[in-house]
């Protein structure tokens, strides 16, 4: 069922892209992903648990994330899932970044975006 062509996944939803960015540097569990997204966006993007886990579930079932169960600390039952970016996920994220970069270039060309803004 999982598709293998990264282009087939584009465009990603903003939430999906944020999640892939958050796990790009290393595996994280759900709460960490939420915190990382909040940190990176300076609190502008703050995901509710429902949205977060539905997106994680979809990304995992599409093969963009690998979910593994690991022993947890206190609170979340015995074990919890840790999500890592898969090879496919990494190439999809890269394809999405390229797509966005293309768009950004196009926007700059017509002066809809400043040059120096990150």
């Amino acid at each position: 069922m999982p598709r293998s062509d990264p282009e087939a996944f584009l465009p990603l939803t903003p939430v999906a892209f944020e999640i892939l960015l958050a796990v790009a540097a290393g595996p994280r569990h759900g709460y960490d992903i939420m915190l990382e997204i909040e940190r990176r966006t300076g609190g502008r993007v703050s995901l509710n648990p429902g949205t977060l886990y539905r997106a994680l579930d979809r990304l995992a079932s599409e093969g963009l994330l690998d979910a593994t169960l690991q022993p947890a600390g206190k609170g979340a039952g015995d074990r919890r899932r840790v999500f890592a970016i898969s090879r496919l996920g990494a190439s999809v994220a890269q394809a999405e970044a390229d797509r966005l970069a293309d768009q950004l270039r196009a926007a700059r060309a017509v002066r809809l975006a400043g040059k120096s803004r990150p």
Partner: protein
Amino acid sequence: MNEAGGRAERLFRALLMLYPKRFRDAYGAEMADVFARRLARADGRMARIRLACRACVDLFSGAVAERFAAAPAAAAKDPMISLLARDLLIAGRTLLRQPTFSATIVFTLALAIGATTAVGALVDAAIVRPLPYPSAERLVSIVEESPRFGKAPFAIPFLRDLRESVTQYDAVVGFTSTWTVTVTGAGEARSVPSAFVSDGVLELFGARPRAGRLLTIADVDAADPVAVVSTPFWERAFGAGAALDGQIVRIDDRPVTIVGIIEALPMPITSSVAASNHDSAEIWLPLSLNPLAGLRTIPVANIVGRLKPEGRIGPARLEVATLPARWSEIYPSVDAAARYSALPLSELVSESSRRPLLALLGAVVLLLLIACANIANLMLVRSATRGSELAVRAALGATRGRLVLQMFADSLVLATMGTAFGVFLAWLALGIVPSLALGELPPSSSIQMDLRVVAIAAGTGLLVAMAVAVVPVLQASRAVIYARIRDGARTVRGGRVRASLAFAEVALALVLLISAGLLARSFWTLSSVDPGFRANNLLASGVAMPGTRYPTADTRRAFVGRALDTLEALPGVTRAAAVNRLPLGGGNVIVGVEIEGQPQPEGPVTMDRRVVTPGYFDTLGIPLVAGRPFGIEDRADAVDRVAAVNEAVARRFWPEGNAIGGRLRLMLRGGAGPWLRITGVFGNVRHHGLDQPAQPEVYVPYAQAAVESMVFLTQVSGDPVALVEPVRQTLQGIDPELPVEQELPRDLVTASMAEPRLRALLFNGFAFAALLLAALGVYGVVSHGVTERTREIGVRVALGATRGSILGLVMRGGLRTVLVGVGGGLVAAVLAARAMRGLLFGVPPFDPMTFAVVTGVLLFVAAAAILVPARRAMRLDPIQALRTDQ
């Protein structure tokens, strides 16, 4: 804050149940954990509430989306599910295309379902759910049914007699309601609520010792008194970590060894007399330590028995019914004609809240019905406009069953959304309910958002979906027939059905409005009741003088005298006096009274006894009707012992107005007291509550009856709150070991009206919503009628009808519906008012004034609702009107 957080988490977990099982199993626990952590991180109460709202809405819409996503997969297996899933999808999309229509319906539903759910949860907690005790269904309260006091307890020594006389129980226990004792020897002197209990009480109510043991039969006569205390008391007195090691505290100046620690234990209130005093006890002492333990004349012990597993309430009741006759031969204090009864504990404790709660439930169900009628009406209007669509689908081969399913899917989607929003509203409402005194809820009845509450809401929602669907479904099926029989059927007419829905709405709204009107009038009457005293500028400060340190009447008189002198000298204090029991403060002292020359064949009359200092009547503004107030001549050593009575006594026993000089004597602990000469008659004071008539009352001067606990009343020229600290310091300056309990009498007056006020408020809120909905319903029907009759009206105008006559035509048609509704509503309101009789005060159930005014208001609002479409009809341009194809 923690509690609100806990509630939010429970709501979150409940909403998680909406997700498909696969998803829930995989992520449920983690999601709840993430939510809890975010909630903990949020800063401030408002932020937490915002966060919880956002997360729950997100969770709910996610659940719907997940369900839809899961549907196609399931559909492959089962064609029926696939059809329903598709219908639901279609319904969802159609409704999203009409956001205003959908939002109106969802909001109306949410309000009605939210109110129903909140009240349902209260009823569940107070009436349906078993009490939080082991074998609660077998617990029975044994009471004396007294004509004057309702359910009365027994004097303590009768516990032993009861245990010997009854056979249906495997345990019979006795306990007092909470008493205030003074605790010293563990930190600062403090008044602590405590209960005197027989052996077996703590076990019966399910207490388990956290440390040490419970009370045993051996403790009853033990030379060294012992006690069990609650965890909060223990931690306050000795610190959280302290180990139980035979610690001794002084309780009412007597050394008592603590032998056990238990968690707080809410005990039931089983008698009408004690109902005003129900702080949770923190100390449990053996019943034998109670100062009244040896007296057969003063009833303070609540008796509860646990039926044997095979025991029946019927025989248990018969058994106690025979006791008064037997006991009256042995004990002079027992009246052979008294009625003893055994009642299931669960019935008894919910007694006071049952009636108001059921009335409230009736009100919300009415509101829910009105909302349903309104929504059915809206759906009907929509299905009329969709008539052609349905006809086309029917023509293309859709069966009647398919169309019906489609209509049902519509209302199911709406009801689901309304329910979810309603649960949220109910959750908000239940958060504030415990702070409003709505009757007395049973001990520790936890009202919380749990699965039971969500189940109530879901059940209501489903019922609503079905009720609302019925009418359009009937219409839809008729649409099929129309489409088959007549070509070119343009619209589906549902005029008569819609009119009868509007009629029902008007009728139901009138019932609610009249009930609300009666309650509002009750409240007005109650708030204009004269309590008989002036409470506004008073501060009350109670002290209890322990017998060990104030052993004689002289020592107590000395303290009270000195305290009054010092208090009067305080700046800002205009008067000071003292009384043993505050008006409206509960805990009235009831004594038997014998009146000279008026033998009472049915036994001694009972009166409230109040012990007062001479300035009492002036300080409270109680008017002197005849005779003189108490003065310094009424000394302890005076030969002439005196008393005063209230008007209720004077009228009843001296109807010719010659009470002054009459003599009476009180039945006290040691038997009949000395004869007292009546020197004054004072105005009635409503000591038992503003809605209770004044009881017969006898006043005696403190100098001649120096009791242990007194409440000092200080009248001030400004706000009494400013004197709270100075008065406390003054009293503790005289005796630093005396705890002082302070309250404002004006709060007692307000509290006595809190429940009727809340009731009137809630009912009027519901009634207002009902009025609005009914007006909308009437407006909808008339407005739609005008649209449908556009062409007809055009013809009339073209043929020369005046604008006035068109206006009259529409108004008459609309008002006819309303008047029929009013007629039906009045009949139903009479029934409702009769059922509410017990909740009314000073207003007859069929109060013509309320009925007339409320009906007038409803007619006025309905007329206004009709006027809007009627004016539209009046202004119709005949040429335009004739061109429409409607």
